[in-house]
């Protein structure tokens, strides 16, 4: 008999996309929405008249209610009010004695009253349900916008639901005692949904549902026989099915709501943790920055003084200094210079970590040629044979990559110093998505046993008398290459030369490449 609100509520569980479509529709032009309302009521009226014509009595109330549910759900509040008004008028004209007139007999007045109350409550219920749905829906970004666009007060309607329920139940009780129309079932399951919207636990919902089932069965046995017996069983069956469906929906919604709440609290917790991490990281970054800053400022000053006053002392007592004294002062001066170099290198190294990389297309070939030209100027008349193979174009920070090349080449030059004929080869090999550049020399080489130490800060594999340097060059190379997402490695043997490899991501963008390199 009355399957309509159940229809509305299962619809709720149905598809979020419907709701979204609904929003689109709501934003549509009013004539369409109001037209939709008129059409729905007309269809319901047609079906109800056809039903009466072919012996399906009492179908009008559920049909009109269904129309109201559909209109409210899809077209919004205004069209819903129109649908309620049109349905009431049609109901009065076609189905209330005397029929084919808007007059209402005294006896039929409660029936009309119940119809109006029921229609209004159905519409209200759908509106409240929509509001509740949007409240509970997990806020995807677009959805949260949608909630804001919904008319305010929809979820406020929820607050009045218990009152509405009580009114509805009262109205139906009156109607049931006055008329022979059995609409208690619909009221009961509606009440279940309405109240569960207010209940906080699944248990509560189940308890209410159980009560409703009992009442439905009870009223089936108590209500006066309406028509043939199968009709009563049919009504009771529909009522029970509706209660079951509604309970299912309510429980599902409660569970979803709980899981959303759990998820959002979890998300909040993770978020808090994340922002705390970010703050910590920022703080330690700042600390690092100020550390480097004070190293730069404060460590250098005393060093300058050591150097300067030793120098002045040397000048001051030059005549009275013996060989030993001169050597002492010379050692002080050399040490302070070395410390100055160490500080500078360390600062430069830490700056690489902090500096922002400006990524462009960089021709390794050009960098190598520039570095070689620079080195040739410095080394004077050493016999070095350069072998430069074709080199790729890579994405990277030009000045950082220049430092890589300069470090590797000057290392190669340094460690081939004792060769009569130094041979230095630069080339590249393909390595999947990366390209690997190598610098090979025939110099002093190193013991592969210590290859892991090679790229450490201030790690040296040679004595300072053999080869000068602070031991920061390869650490710098590794740091820069790691920042570019590449890897470094080395191969060599004692007195057999060394080969240093570094990989960089390939520059994929061909057109840009040709522009840059041409």
């Amino acid at each position, binding site marked *: 008999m009355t399957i309509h609100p159940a229809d509305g509520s299962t619809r709720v569980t149905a598809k979020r996309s419907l709701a979204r479509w609904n929003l689109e529709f709501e934003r549509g032009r009013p004539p369409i929405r109001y037209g939709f309302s008129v059409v729905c009521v007309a269809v319901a009226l047609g079906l109800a008249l056809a039903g009466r014509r072919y012996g399906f009595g009492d179908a009008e109330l559920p049909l009109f209610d269904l129309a109201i549910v559909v209109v409210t759900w899809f077209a919004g509040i205004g069209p819903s009010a129109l649908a309620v008004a049109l349905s009431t008028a049609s109901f009065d004209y076609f189905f209330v004695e005397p029929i084919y007139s808007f007059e209402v007999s005294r006896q039929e007045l409660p029936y009309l009253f119940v119809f109006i109350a029921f229609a209004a409550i159905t519409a209200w219920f759908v509106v409240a349900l929509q509001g509740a749905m949007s409240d509970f829906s997990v806020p995807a970004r677009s959805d949260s916008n949608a909630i804001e666009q919904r008319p305010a007060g929809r979820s406020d309607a929820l607050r009045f639901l218990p009152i509405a329920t009580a009114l509805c139940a009262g109205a139906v009780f009156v109607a049931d005692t006055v008329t022979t129309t059995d609409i208690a079932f619909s009221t009961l399951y509606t009440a279940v949904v309405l109240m569960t919207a207010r209940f906080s636990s699944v248990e509560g919902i189940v308890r209410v549902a159980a009560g409703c089932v009992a009442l439905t069965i009870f009223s089936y046995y108590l209500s006066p026989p309406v028509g043939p017996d199968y009709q009563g069983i049919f009504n009771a069956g529909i009522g029970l099915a509706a209660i079951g469906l509604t309970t299912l929906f309510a429980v599902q919604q409660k569970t979803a709501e709980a899981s959303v709440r759990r998820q959002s609290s979890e998300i909040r917790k993770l978020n808090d943790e994340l922002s705390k991490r970010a703050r910590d990281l920022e703080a330690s970054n700042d600390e690092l920055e100020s550390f480097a800053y004070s190293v730069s400022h404060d460590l250098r*000053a005393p060093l*300058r003084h050591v*150097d300067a*006053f030793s120098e002045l002392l040397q000048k001051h007592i030059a005549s009275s200094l013996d060989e030993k004294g001169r050597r002492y002062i010379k050692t002080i001066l050399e040490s*302070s210079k070395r410390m100055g170099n160490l500080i500078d290198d360390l600062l430069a190294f830490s*700056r690489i970590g902090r500096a922002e990389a400006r990524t462009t297309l960089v021709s390794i070939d050009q960098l190598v040629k520039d570095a070689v030209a620079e080195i040739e100027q410095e080394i004077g008349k050493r016999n070095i044979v350069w072998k430069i193979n074709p080199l790729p174009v890579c994405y990277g920070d030009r000045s950082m990559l220049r430092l890589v090349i300069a470090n590797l080449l000057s290392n190669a030059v340094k460690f081939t110093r004792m060769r009569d004929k130094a041979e230095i080869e630069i080339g590249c090999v393909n390595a999947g998505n990366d390209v690997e550049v190598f610098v090979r020399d025939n110099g002093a080489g190193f013991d592969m046993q210590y290859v892991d130490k090679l790229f450490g800060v201030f790690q040296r594999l040679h004595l300072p008398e053999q080869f000068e340097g602070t031991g920061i060059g390869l650490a710098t190379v590794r740091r820069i290459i790691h920042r570019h997402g590449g890897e470094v490695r080395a191969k060599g043997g004692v007195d057999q030369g060394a080969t240093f490899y570094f990989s960089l991501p390939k520059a994929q963008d061909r057109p840009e490449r040709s522009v840059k390199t041409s």
Partner: protein
Amino acid sequence: MSGLGRVLLVEDDPKDVELTLTALAEYNLANEVVITRDGEQALDYLYCRGEFSARSNDNPAVMLLDLKLPKVDGLEVLQQIRSDERLKLIPVVVLTSSHEERDLVRSYRLGVNAYVVKPVDFHEFVNAIKELGVFWAVINQPPPGSLGKAQ
């Protein structure tokens, strides 16, 4: 008083003051060098207030300014000078231990005339100070109103 420009040295470290003076003396630079030991004292000097209230009201030919100073730091002094109509023309050379890019950038943003990092090596330091002194106090033509020539 000499007709040469006056050098205002703002430096908190007494050893650096001594070294700077030694370097200037090595070149026999005859310019008067006024020494202030922090930013506040430097501003006192420029505004002729406090202990400097009796001095003649002219600007130094050049100001050698350390960045890390007690009380008012070098950048604040620089900012103050550049925002004052009467002082903004004074040539200011930052003379600091700091290589830091952000110091460089901020100094130039505030309109510094030169930025010199004190070299660790003493000879280089002497050279740098000498060249600075010669350039700013002798070669460079300071803005009007900054010479102590009136007397």
